[in-house]
């Protein structure tokens, strides 16, 4: 049994402008100890997906349908009290902006200890000891002293570590990391990602990592789901996604990664912007920006298809899939891109494990 299974998750926001379909029919699963990445531009529905898992969607948002099965239980059928027992305890979240996530009027020690006190029946002295251990394990120097410090006395990177310590406080089975390094500089980002990876391995915790940075995905994750306009457009392992992307949007994202030493003066981008989720284009939502779009793309919205057989994927399986009409044979001209991997260092397998190497070696020719 998978640790987390999401089936047909649909989340809508009822606003004055109209109905925003933030997440539309999402299916995926995360196994125990697995690191699963969700990638996409701003507005793709990544964060709403994360908040839905913890049932933190607020009015006017509604989880309209679907199932979130965590350790065999459907979170959407639980009472609020039951969900509170899961939240922070078995499933924890690392929020994107640590400064906003921390309460400025409580010490960081108290904030970490609160989760431990709430979920674990421990005496105060042990709670304090555990909190200090956690601060130490996430690399906060002098944790006994820093226990009584307030968030403003920490740097951005240290605040993010505090949030990670808070997420780890009750040994969760799943950590949802919502762009944990977006607000940080690259050196701190690398440290935080290392820390997250090491801690996940140490505690055998599964991670759902949400980011818009494909480099971060390559560094940390085993499998990836690419989202666009609230829908999954590609699911694959990291190796497959990097060496053999199947969806034009994934190709666009990869070609938009800046590479050191590139001779071209202009960075390749995906033209246009994410569509308004109130008014999605007909057919494939990506067709107005897709260089390979044809008439059929404006009339048919493809589900996730097996790129080899063209068969639609069913349920939340781990099979590879891409939502493009190319794989159902409906595109006349087909997709015309190729991925060239310059094997500069001579070891392709290593390239996947390293963000810098992967981004400087992979070359996408449209």
């Amino acid at each position, binding site marked *: 049994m998978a640790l987390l299974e999401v089936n047909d998750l649909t989340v809508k926001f*009822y606003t*004055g402008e109209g109905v925003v379909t933030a997440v539309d029919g999402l299916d995926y699963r995360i196994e125990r100890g697995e690191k699963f990445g969700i990638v996409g531009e701003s507005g793709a529905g990544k964060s709403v997906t994360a908040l839905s898992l913890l049932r933190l969607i607020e009015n*006017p948002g509604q989880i309209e349908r679907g199932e979130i099965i965590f350790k065999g239980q459907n979170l959407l059928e639980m009472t609020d009290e039951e969900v509170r027992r899961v939240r922070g305890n078995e499933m924890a979240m690392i929020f994107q902006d640590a400064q906003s996530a921390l309460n400025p009027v409580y010490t960081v020690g108290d904030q970490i200890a609160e989760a431990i006190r709430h979920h674990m029946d421990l005496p105060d002295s042990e709670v304090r000891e555990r909190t200090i251990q956690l601060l130490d394990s996430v690399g906060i120097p002098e944790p006994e002293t820093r226990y009584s410090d307030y968030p403003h006395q920490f740097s951005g990177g240290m605040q993010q570590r505090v949030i990670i310590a808070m997420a780890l406080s009750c040994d969760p089975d799943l950590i949802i990391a919502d762009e944990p390094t977006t607000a940080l500089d690259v050196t701190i980002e690398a440290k935080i990602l290392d820390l997250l990876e090491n801690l996940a391995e140490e505690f055998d915790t599964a991670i759902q990592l949400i980011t818009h940075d494909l480099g971060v995905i390559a560094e940390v994750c085993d499998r990836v789901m690419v989202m666009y306009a609230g829908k999954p457009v590609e699911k694959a392992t990291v190796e497959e996604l990097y060496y053999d992307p199947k969806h034009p949007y994934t190709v666009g994202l990869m070609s938009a990664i800046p590479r050191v030493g590139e001779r071209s003066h202009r960075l390749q981008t995906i033209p246009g912007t994410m569509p308004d989720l109130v008014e999605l284009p*007909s*057919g494939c939502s990506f067709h107005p920006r897709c260089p390979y779009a044809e008439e059929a793309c404006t009339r048919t919205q493809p*589900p996730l298809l097996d790129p080899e057989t063209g068969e639609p994927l069913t349920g939340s399986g781990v099979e590879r899939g891409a939502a493009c009409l190319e794989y159902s044979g409906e595109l006349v001209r087909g997709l015309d891109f190729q991925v060239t991997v310059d094997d500069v260092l001579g070891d392709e397998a290593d390239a996947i494990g390293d963000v810098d190497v992967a981004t400087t070696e992979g070359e996408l020719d449209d």
Partner: protein
Amino acid sequence: MRRIYESDALHRDTDAPFSPNERDDDDVRPQAARSIPSAAITSAVLPGWVRHRSISVDVSVPATEFTAGSPVPFQVTMKNAMPFPVVIPTESAIQWTWNVDGHRDASHFPLHDPPAGDDAITFDRGERKRYRKRWDQMFRVSDDEWEQATVGEHTIGAGLNVVDSPGKGLYDEATFRVVPE
């Protein structure tokens, strides 16, 4: 609770130009106008038909003819003519709807399933709400299939999500022609 003016932290002096004046404790007039929940009051006091008459809905398209395949922009304007707020209860969390030739959201089947329960749309005094949308001349015929609209006359309508919105004057339509390229 101890107030800041009881703390002696603030120096008051009626004569000094840069200090606040001495406080007259006998003067207990409110410092600012109190706010009242006027939307709640008017919704309790005003009968439904007055509220409906207060709101006008207008749908407009920028041209009478569009070539086949080109998007049709349209604008929905709702205005409260009254100098007080008006609240209109709606059938669901969807406050207003639009349709093409009677097909809500240009779809042959319901796209949304909002949670049951009363909701309402609130207009401030004299408020004008304006929504700009586009219809790409496609009708959704199934979950993943769309169909091109035929050449000829089409009507875009929009109204508040209340029972019998045309009968209550909370609905409007605009007609145009789709012509071949």
